[in-house]
């Protein structure tokens, strides 16, 4: 789960990490007041769940409180289009008003969990302010990586090694190791899946400050982090995905094509997308219907397909295992009973209770396009969507 920059900085601050002075504002007047408290000169940052804000005009310097109020007024209520958002952009309902910082150096500090090391990894780089994946690709030697196993946890020596590696001598070294220790503790105690401070700046007055910060929370751990789960901002999420979620269809991701997909299992679902693409079509979504054996979720998935005006055809590919084919088939029939479905449906069924499932579809008297395997299904769906 993603959260906003201002929320991430509040969390850093609670974890004992010093952040730039400032506050979040939901109205232009509020932004002006905060700017005045900061002495007028400040930075106004649009709060959206996407990077690339600077180039897109989402981060602006204000010279006075009035200027700040004006900038905030223009940002608030608008949609910000960055390289990382969709073409419609993300809605700006809050701005972060922060002190202007005189930057001497820009560094990068990040944490994630490394599946190969099976441990949290702290990453540091002198190439701060840049897209770290770009740096990893072009200048891998510029990224210091340290896997921190859970036997030792984060020790001061980890911090010294990274800090000296960044060229930070005392007393900045001590600031850096303390910040890293706090970030590690935050990461492991709060179930973060990603923490990025980019840039982490050394100010001209000798402070180490997170100028921007991104924290993602492990979705699987939200059940035990209710205070973090409460930070979700639904406005930043796609409308169709939100609708799917509210209908209990959890593993739904909107894509940009015209073929709605309903598959059981994430791997098979990805393979179906691949198969559609190689058949010359474009999927409208990823959807792993999962294994919960009830017809309601199937009906709800069809509600989402119907709400998606781009969908010209639907491909159902089910290989029963945990999931039972007859239940899925029953769900498809119920969907037709509950709503007016006009798009063609290609169905490929296999696995547990497949015969019972096929009988249900036949008995319904409804028209479906049946397919013998996933390749056949993909080709038929592409053809159906083009009609």
């Amino acid at each position, binding site marked *: 789960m993603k959260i906003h920059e201002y929320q991430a900085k509040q969390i850093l601050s609670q974890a004992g990490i010093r952040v730039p002075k400032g506050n979040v504002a939901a109205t232009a007047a509020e932004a002006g007041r905060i700017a005045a408290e900061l002495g007028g000169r400040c930075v106004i940052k649009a709060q959206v769940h996407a990077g690339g804000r600077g180039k897109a005009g989402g981060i602006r310097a204000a010279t006075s409180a009035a200027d700040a109020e004006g900038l905030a007024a223009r940002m608030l209520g608008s949609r910000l289009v960055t390289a990382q958002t969709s073409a419609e952009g993300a809605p700006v309902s809050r701005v972060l008003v922060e002190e202007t910082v005189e930057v001497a150096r820009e560094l990068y500090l990040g944490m994630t*969990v490394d599946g190969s090391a099976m441990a949290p990894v702290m990453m540091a780089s002198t190439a701060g302010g840049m897209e770290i994946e770009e740096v990893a690709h072009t200048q891998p030697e510029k990224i210091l990586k340290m896997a921190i196993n859970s036997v030792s946890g984060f020790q001061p020596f980890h911090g010294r090694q990274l800090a000296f590696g960044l060229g930070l001598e005392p007393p900045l070294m001590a600031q850096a190791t303390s910040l890293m220790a706090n970030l590690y503790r935050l990461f492991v105690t709060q179930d973060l899946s990603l923490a990025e401070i980019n840039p982490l700046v050394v100010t001209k007055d000798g402070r180490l400050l997170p100028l921007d910060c991104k924290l993602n929370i492990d979705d699987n751990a939200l059940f035990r982090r209710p205070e973090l789960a409460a930070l979700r901002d639904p406005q930043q999420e796609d409308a169709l995905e939100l609708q799917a979620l509210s209908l209990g269809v959890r593993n739904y991701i909107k894509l940009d094509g015209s073929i709605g997909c309903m*598959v059981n299992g994430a*791997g098979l679902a990805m393979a179906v997308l691949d198969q559609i693409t190689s058949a010359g079509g474009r999927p409208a979504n990823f959807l792993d219907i999962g294994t919960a054996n009830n017809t309601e979720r199937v009906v709800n998935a069809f509600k989402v397909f119907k709400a998606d005006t781009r969908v010209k055809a639907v491909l159902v590919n089910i*290989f029963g295992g945990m999931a039972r084919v007859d239940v899925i088939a029953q769900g498809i029939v119920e969907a037709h009973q509950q709503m007016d479905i006009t798009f063609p449906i290609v169905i490929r069924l296999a696995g547990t209770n497949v015969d019972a499932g096929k009988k249900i579809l036949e008995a319904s008297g409804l028209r479906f396009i049946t397919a013998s395997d996933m390749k056949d299904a993909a080709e038929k769906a592409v053809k159906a969507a083009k009609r």
Partner: protein
Amino acid sequence: MSILVDKNTRLLVQGITGGEGSFHAQRCQEYGAKVVAGVTPGKAGSQVAGIPVFNTVEKAVRETGANASIIFVPAAFAADAIMEAADAGIPLVVCITEGIPTLDMVTVTGYLNLRGARLIGPNCPGVISPGKSKAGIMAGEIHMPGAVGVVSRSGTLTYETVAQLTALGLGQSTCVGIGGDPIVGSSFADMLQLFQKDRATRAVVLIGEIGGSKEQEAAEFIKTMTKPVIAFVAGATAPPGRRMGHAGAIISGSSGTAKEKMAALKAAGALIAPSPAQIGETVKQVLGKDSRR
């Protein structure tokens, strides 16, 4: 022969009194697995389909000699269950549970490393050695005994693959789902190593996914293998930065894409199936050509 499970496997089911645990304990039993015990704290003395239930794994192992465990307990309690199995000396733990917090798995894998236990999963379909034993949730009837090993990060895509193999008359030695999470107990390379040593396995199918670098690590091991490996990586058309159902299936940076993974596997000598629907055919071509027994 086969890997991981066979006729000597004495299976324990953790969470046996729950809906899924009870259902699959019986399916495993029906398939021929020796399901010797179940564990649900506080339910000692009861039975599920004739299988005795114990309060702790330690006690279950002591009384029944269980040497493998399959876990169905909910995500919030699964890490504890895995460690309990390892602590009781069980050498093979299969965790079906999906949705375990990643940092729990950091602890679990560290602990299992210390105890010398092997974990398959979590968030996986488990293991089956067709005709011998099953410690998993896959439908037994689509499988057929034979010489192809299958290892995959995905559940249903494994079924798809197995169905293709069986339809072409290509039986399987063992099929393993290693799980779709960012941290899993066993890697592709771990399983390839076992398949390489297994006399019954003549070729291995590896089914990867976008995200992480487990396929690239597998490629390093494939370079040392004498048996043919047929590979497919799902998610070539998935958008970057999104979690595709499997928590591990996020493309981040350049190394997680299906394209790079397939390139690494190909460079290591694996044959890449052109589409998910053609995995079986590709295996058939290879085994047809392969003169080694």
